[in-house]
C-alpha cells in the first residue's frame, strides 16, 4: 500500500477510532443472509407433493371406480326422466362400446355352393372403440326372436319409452342383461337393419313407469310415421350402401407438441485440469480441482418440441421430430476495468500439453473490481429419435416411459471457458458444434377425443463434452424438468 504521502497523526486517530467502533446489526440482516444461503425449499416440495397427490387421486378414481358418464348425462338432461332400465341405451357415443352388426340376408350368407359357411359381413358402430378389450356388444340377427323385456312390469305396447325402437330384432349375445333387448311390434319391407335411436320422449317426472302413460295421439301418430320413414332409410342403407363400408383402420399417426421448463447444470471432469498443465509460462499455476475453485450455479431453461408419433401397437409408439433447447447455467465472476490476457491450456489426445491459446477478457474467477454474474447459454436444435412405451392403464389414462437419442446442433458458440489462469473467456474454436444428447422421461397421459395430454418428469444428458478434446476440461450439460405435451391423432 502506498502510504506516507499525507501521513500525519490525524490518520492514526481516524484509523484507531474507526477500528474501535462497532455496531450491531439488526436481526433481519442475518435472516436475509440465511435465507439467501439456505433457500427454503419446503414450498417446492409441498407443491410437488400436492401435484403428485392430485394426479394419484385422479388416477385411482379413474382406474378403480366405473365410468359414471352415462349417469351424468342422464342427470344433466332435463328432458330425461327415463328409468334405470333404459339408461343403458342412452349412453353418449363417446363411451359406447363398439357394436359389431352383421349384414346381408341370413339365408344368402348361411352357406355357399361348396357347403362351407361364408364369412358374415359386418359393420361397426362406434369404431373408435373397436379394439379387443372394448367390444361390448355383438348383435346376431339369425337368432330367433325373444320375448320382449318385461322387467319392472312395463307394459310394452302402451309404453312410449320403447316406441323408439321399431326396427329389426336385436339380441345381445354378450353378457349384457336381457332387458336391453326388445321385439318390435311390426316390421316392414323385410328391412333387417337394426337401428339405435336416441329419440327420447318426455315423461312427466311424477309419472311411474309401472303405470300406463297417457300420450297425445297426434304426437304418437307423428312419431310412428317418422319411425316408418327411418325404417325405409335404414333398409336402403342396409341393402345398398352399408354393405360396402369397410371396417375403419386404426389411426396411427399423431402430432405432438411439448414444452418443458428445465433446471440446467453441467458436470465437469477431466484428467488434465489447467493446474496440471505445466508448460504455460504466462499462466500462474493454481493448484486444486477447478470444480472446487469456481462458483457456478444451476439456472432455468426450457425445451420446446414438435414430434411425429407412429403407433406400432397399443404398447409401443415411435417418435421423431425437432426440438429447440435453451440450456444455461450461471457463473459468479469478477470483472476488471480493462481487458487482460488469459491463457487457455491445450492438450493432445494423449493428455499431454501441446500448446496454449491466448485471448483477452475482463472476467476473472478470483477478485476484481465488481462482481459479475455471467451466463453460459446454449441454444440447441435436436432431432429426437426414440420411442414411448405404455406400461399400464386403460381407457383414457395411461402411464408410460419414453426415451430418445438426439443428434444436436449448437446454434451459438460464445460460452465462457475457464482459462488456465482462472479467468473466463470465450473461444468459439474450442466449442463443439455437433453433439448427441439423450433423454428419458416418464409420463401419465389422458385422452380426450382426438387429443392426448401428457405430463411427467424428463431428464436430458449431453453425451459428449461441450468442448473439443484439446480443451482440458470436459463439460457435459444436463437438465431436468416437467414435460407437458399434447398429441393430436392425425391419420
Amino acid at each position, binding site marked *: *500500500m*502506498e*502510504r506516507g*504521502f*499525507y501521513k500525519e*497523526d*490525524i*490518520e492514526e*486517530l*481516524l*484509523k484507531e*477510532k*474507526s*477500528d*474501535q*467502533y*462497532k*455496531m*450491531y*446489526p*439488526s436481526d*433481519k*440482516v*442475518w435472516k*436475509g*443472509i*440465511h435465507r*439467501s*444461503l*439456505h433457500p427454503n425449499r419446503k414450498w417446492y416440495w409441498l407443491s410437488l407433493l400436492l401435484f403428485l397427490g392430485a394426479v394419484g387421486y385422479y388416477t385411482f378414481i379413474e382406474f378403480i371406480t366405473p365410468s359414471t358418464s352415462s349417469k351424468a348425462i342422464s342427470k344433466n338432461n332435463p328432458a330425461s326422466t327415463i328409468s334405470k332400465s333404459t339408461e343403458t341405451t342412452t349412453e353418449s357415443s363417446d363411451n359406447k362400446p363398439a357394436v359389431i352388426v352383421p349384414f346381408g340376408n341370413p339365408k344368402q350368407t348361411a352357406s355357399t355352393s361348396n357347403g362351407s359357411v361364408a364369412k358374415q359381413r359386418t359393420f361397426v358402430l362406434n369404431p373408435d372403440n373397436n379394439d379387443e378389450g372394448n367390444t361390448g356388444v355383438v348383435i346376431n340377427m339369425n337368432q330367433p326372436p325373444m320375448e320382449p323385456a318385461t322387467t319392472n312390469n312395463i307394459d310394452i305396447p302402451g309404453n312410449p319409452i320403447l316406441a323408439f325402437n321399431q326396427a329389426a330384432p336385436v339380441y345381445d349375445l354378450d353378457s349384457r342383461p336381457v332387458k336391453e333387448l326388445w321385439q318390435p311390434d311390426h316390421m316392414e319391407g323385410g328391412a333387417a337393419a337394426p337401428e339405435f335411436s336416441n329419440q327420447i320422449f318426455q315423461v312427466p317426472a311424477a309419472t311411474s313407469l309401472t303405470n300406463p302413460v297417457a300420450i297425445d295421439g297426434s304426437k304418437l301418430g307423428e312419431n310412428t310415421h317418422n319411425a316408418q320413414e327411418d325404417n325405409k332409410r335404414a333398409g336402403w342403407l342396409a341393402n345398398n350402401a352399408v354393405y360396402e363400408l369397410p371396417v375403419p383402420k386404426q389411426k396411427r399417426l399423431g402430432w405432438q407438441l411439448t414444452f418443458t421448463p428445465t433446471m440446467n447444470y453441467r458436470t465437469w471432469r477431466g484428467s488434465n485440469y489447467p493446474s496440471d498443465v505445466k508448460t504455460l509460462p504466462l499462466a500462474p499455476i493454481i493448484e486444486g480441482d477447478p470444480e*472446487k*475453485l469456481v*462458483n457456478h450455479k444451476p439456472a432455468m431453461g426450457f425445451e420446446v418440441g414438435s414430434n411425429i408419433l407412429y403407433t406400432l401397437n397399443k404398447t409401443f409408439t415411435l417418435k421423431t421430430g425437432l426440438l429447440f433447447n435453451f440450456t444455461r447455467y450461471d457463473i*459468479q465472476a469478477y470483472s476488471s*476495468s480493462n481487458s487482460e490476457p488469459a491463457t487457455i491450456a491445450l492438450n493432445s489426445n494423449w493428455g499431454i500439453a501441446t500448446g496454449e491459446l491466448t485471448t483477452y477478457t475482463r472476467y476473472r*474467477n*478470483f477478485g476484481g*473490481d*465488481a*462482481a459479475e454474474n455471467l451466463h453460459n447459454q446454449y441454444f440447441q436444435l435436436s432431432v429426437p429419435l426414440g420411442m414411448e412405451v405404455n406400461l399400464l392403464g386403460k381407457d383414457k389414462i395411461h402411464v408410460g416411459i419414453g426415451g430418445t437419442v438426439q443428434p444436436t446442433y449448437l446454434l451459438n458458440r460464445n460460452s465462457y471457458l475457464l482459462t488456465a489462469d482462472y479467468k473466463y473467456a470465450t473461444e468459439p474454436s474450442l466449442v463443439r458444434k455437433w453433439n448427441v444428447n439423450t433423454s428419458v422421461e416418464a409420463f401419465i397421459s389422458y385422452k380426450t377425443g382426438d387429443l392426448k395430454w401428457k405430463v411427467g418428469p424428463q431428464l436430458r444428458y449431453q453425451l459428449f463434452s461441450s468442448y473439443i478434446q484439446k480443451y482440458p476440461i470436459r463439460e457435459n450439460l444436463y437438465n431436468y424438468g416437467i414435460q407437458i405435451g399434447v398429441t393430436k391423432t392425425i391419420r
Partner: protein
Amino acid sequence: MTDDAILQGCLRNDTTAQRELYNRYSPKMLSVCYRFAHHREDAEDMLQEGFIKVFSQIHTFQNKGAFEGWIRRIIVHTCINHLKKNKKFNESVDIIHATSIQVREESVPSIVQAKQVVECIRLLPIGYRTVLNLYAIEGYSHKEIADMLDIEESTSRSQYTRAKQMLEDILVKKKIIMRPKEKHNWLGVAAGR
C-alpha cells in the same frame, strides 16, 4: 471456535459455523459499511450483500492472509459497488471543490469517543468521505482507489487532501481535537496521552 474451524464449517455450508463467523465479524464490518453509507439501513443492506458474497466465495480464500482482512476487502468492494449504483455518487466523486459544511460547536469531550469520530467522517460529502475511508482507514493506495472509483489518481489525491482538511475543521469545531500550535502536538488527544 477457531477461525480454521469456522472456515471448515463454512466450506461445508454449515449454518452454525456461518452464524459464528457472522457474529464474530459483523459488528466491525457494519461500522465499515456505516462509514460509506448514507443511512444505517443502507449500511445493513451493504453488510447483508457483503456477507452473502463472503459465504458464497469462501472456497476461494487461500489462507495466505488474515481472514478478517479478506472479509473486509469483500465488504469494502461491496460498499463501493453499492455506492456506484447511485448516480449522485458518481457525480460527486469527481467534484474537486465541495462546499463548506456548517458544523455546530460543541463542548470539549473528556474522552474522544470512536462514535464521534465516525459521525464526523460521515458529515463529509460522499466523494470526499469515500476517498478518505479508502485511503486513511482501509489502507488502499491512490492508484487502487482510482481503479476502484474510475477516477484519475490525481483526483484521488486532491480529494483526499481536501477531505482531510474538511474533517480537521469539523473535528476542531466539535472540539474533538485542537488545532495544533506546533505540528507535534496539534492533536489534543495525543497531548493527553
